[in-house]
């Protein structure tokens, strides 16, 4: 079955081609079938391949499929290789499976929209590109997927292109991530310069032998790769694009946040973990970036009024947790959190989409309220997703994945107590802002009456994701629960295991109790602050609340420090000598144009005169020469 590997990315691409070329001729039903079936089949094949990978693991727990050689320039011959190991398998499963559920949901959600086929073709391309990214055995190939993902995010964020604000958000996402991409490209150049190849595994095996630990080269490469990861994963300081990316339709947000795009950075760092291990400074920076981002985004999420922006900031915050885990060397914990996060964040976005759809595209939470009674189904699935995001102890998937990250933030070698403190404070924040969102949206008095019914194609994905958000964590229990770390064990075939400096199960249990208490405390706090009293009304527009609301003013700082100088420079540089050269060419031709067009009077006698004069001149020349 392994030989079918190539069909996994090929199916979404085929779907994209069909929809892009013939989408206008096909009926909506056929479009919906093509769009969701291509990813659905891809998910099915991924599961089959995964089962055969698990039951009958290939040698070294790695399977490679060489498709063809791309180009040959001297010794540089990048082969198009698909690389399957435990890391890419987990990512592939999440991308195709969650991606399929989102497609299924979209068939019902987007049914009244224009550009139905266009939407599904972009979505298929998105899934295909992301699969390319995680299956690539070569950094060039990976970069291709990386850029294609950026392109798709641009196309989908600006899907409702008739509103200029959406176009602006799309451009912002594209340009901000492009800054990271440039850094990553530089990182790839550095690697190629050193190793003469961009095959990932070859680099990773040769790296420890040829580069000294902590050498400037190792640090520089790691920082450049981190730059790329930071851009795609919306971490500090390039996180500004993600909240604005909410301009796209809800399924797009779900796809960007859960299955594709923002997790690409996590994948990149996990995939090139050797480089980060050889550059401890850079790895510490990864952890710092994660810790700071998760706190900043948590505070911002606390003050948002748009339900999708709350979720956007929560994504930034949760990916901060993943970066924190990567930074302290808990590679598998990051992948585990990626997986559970994909389940509950997709659930939350799709649930929020249902709410928004039934309230006449209302995004403002303060105009919702009381939806618990009128939309019970949506309430329950949204509650499950929120519980998982807030890491409600024991019964939710989010608890298990976050707990491992918090444990290693404390216990891993080379970690720092501050990381743990940031993580634990972050989990309190998460509980507060998640509960705030649920309380304001679903409790209290009814402000807008919902209309319409929810289609079955929308309900099924929500149910599946809700179940996964609850039980998805049971594949990896914390160490003090016994020897039940199946996911970590599976990933340990290809990723190094985290080294804990502390092995005290008592402390681990104590920390779990602390974080559990903090989560419950956070929910209670939210109950007091947002349901009993309306703190938002009292503090909005005041002091630090305003800073949090505007994402700590990063947009303003970039506006002043980057955008305005660039605009100013381009304005004063508008009339340089190159400009004169090109306008000169235009003017030269314009001059002759005006002159010659005067000759064309349109009068036939004038032309006859011209012919006659010419003839006379010709005769005179002939006669007298």
């Amino acid at each position, binding site marked *: 079955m392994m030989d079918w590997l190539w069909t996994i990315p090929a199916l979404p691409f085929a779907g994209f081609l069909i929809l892009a070329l013939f989408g206008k001729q096909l009926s909506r039903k056929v479009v919906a079938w093509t769009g969701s079936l291509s990813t659905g089949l891809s998910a099915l094949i991924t599961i089959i391949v995964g089962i055969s990978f698990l039951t009958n693991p290939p040698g070294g727990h790695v399977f490679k499929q060489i498709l063809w050689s791309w180009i040959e320039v001297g010794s540089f011959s990048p082969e198009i290789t698909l690389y399957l190991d435990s890391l890419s398998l987990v990512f592939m499963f999440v991308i195709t499976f969650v991606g399929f559920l989102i497609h299924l949901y979209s068939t019902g959600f987007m049914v009244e929209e224009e550009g139905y086929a266009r939407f599904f073709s972009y979505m298929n391309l998105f899934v295909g590109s992301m699969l390319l990214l995680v299956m690539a055995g070569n950094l060039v190939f990976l970069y291709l997927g990386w850029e294609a993902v950026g392109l798709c995010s641009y196309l989908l964020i600006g899907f409702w292109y008739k509103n200029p604000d959406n176009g602006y958000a799309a451009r912002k996402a594209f340009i901000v991530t492009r800054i990271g991409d440039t850094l990553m490209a530089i990182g790839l150049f550095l690697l190629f310069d050193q190793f003469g190849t961009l095959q990932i595994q070859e680099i990773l095996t040769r790296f420890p032998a040829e580069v000294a630990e902590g050498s400037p080269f190792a640090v520089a490469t790691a920082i450049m790769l981190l730059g790329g990861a930071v851009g795609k994963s919306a971490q500090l300081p390039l996180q500004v694009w993600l909240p604005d990316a909410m301009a796209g339709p809800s399924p797009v947000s779900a796809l960007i946040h859960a299955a594709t795009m923002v997790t690409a950075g996590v994948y990149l760092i996990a995939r090139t973990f050797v480089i980060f291990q050889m550059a401890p400074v850079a790895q510490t920076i990864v952890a710092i970036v994660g810790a700071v981002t998760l706190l900043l985004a948590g505070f911002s999420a606390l003050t948002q009024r748009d339900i999708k922006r709350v979720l956007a900031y929560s994504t930034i915050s949760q990916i901060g947790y993943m970066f924190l885990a990567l930074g302290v060397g808990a590679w598998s914990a990051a992948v585990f959190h990626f997986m559970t996060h994909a389940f509950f964040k997709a659930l939350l976005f799709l649930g929020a989409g249902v709410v928004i759809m039934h309230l006449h595209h209302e995004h403002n939470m303060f105009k919702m309220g009381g939806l618990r009674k009128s939309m019970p189904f949506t309430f329950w699935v949204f509650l499950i997703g929120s519980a998982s995001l807030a890491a409600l102890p024991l019964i939710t998937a989010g608890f298990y994945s976050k707990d491992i990250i918090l444990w290693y933030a404390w216990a891993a070698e080379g970690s720092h107590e501050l990381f743990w403190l940031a993580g634990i404070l972050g989990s309190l924040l998460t509980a507060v802002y998640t509960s705030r969102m649920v309380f304001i949206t679903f409790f209290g008095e009814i402000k807008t009456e919902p209309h319409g019914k929810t289609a079955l194609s929308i309900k099924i994905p929500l149910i599946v994701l809700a179940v996964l958000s609850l039980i998805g964590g049971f594949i990896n229990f914390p160490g003090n629960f016994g020897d039940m770390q199946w996911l970590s064990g599976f990933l340990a075939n290809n990723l190094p295991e985290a080294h804990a400096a502390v092995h005290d199960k008592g402390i681990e249990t104590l920390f779990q109790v602390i974080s559990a208490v903090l989560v419950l405390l956070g929910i209670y706090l939210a109950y007091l602050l947002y349901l009993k009293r309306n703190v938002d009304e009292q503090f909005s527009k005041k002091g630090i609340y305003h800073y949090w609301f505007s994402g700590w003013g990063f947009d303003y700082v970039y506006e002043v420090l980057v955008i305005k100088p660039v605009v100013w420079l381009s304005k004063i540089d508008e009339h340089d000598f190159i400009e004169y050269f090109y306008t000169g060419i235009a003017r030269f031709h314009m001059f002759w144009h005006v002159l010659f067009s005067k000759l064309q*009077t*349109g009068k*036939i*006698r004038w032309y006859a005169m011209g012919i*006659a004069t010419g003839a006379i001149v010709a005769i005179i020349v002939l006669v007298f020469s």
Partner: protein
Amino acid sequence: MINISLETGLLLAGILFFMGFLGVMVRRNVIFMLMSVEVMLNAAGIAFVMAGSHWHQPDGQVMFIFILTMAAAEVSVGLAILLQLHKHYKSLDADAANKMKG
């Protein structure tokens, strides 16, 4: 048979040609322009015939027959254009059709 010298014949042809030329240049009525073109063609024909008789060659008269045929074709095309012109502009003034002005 009266002997006409070559010079006289060519002079006649030249005068006729010049008169036709002037007509084409000066006249604005398309019918007169066409007539002037015919005059010019016949002037050229006279020149051919004169030259043919001077060198005792039949070629000059052959060329004149060619010119006659060509003139017939030219007049039919010219009259067709003239009819269209009149249909479009309700006038025979050649200057009225100056849509090709640059």
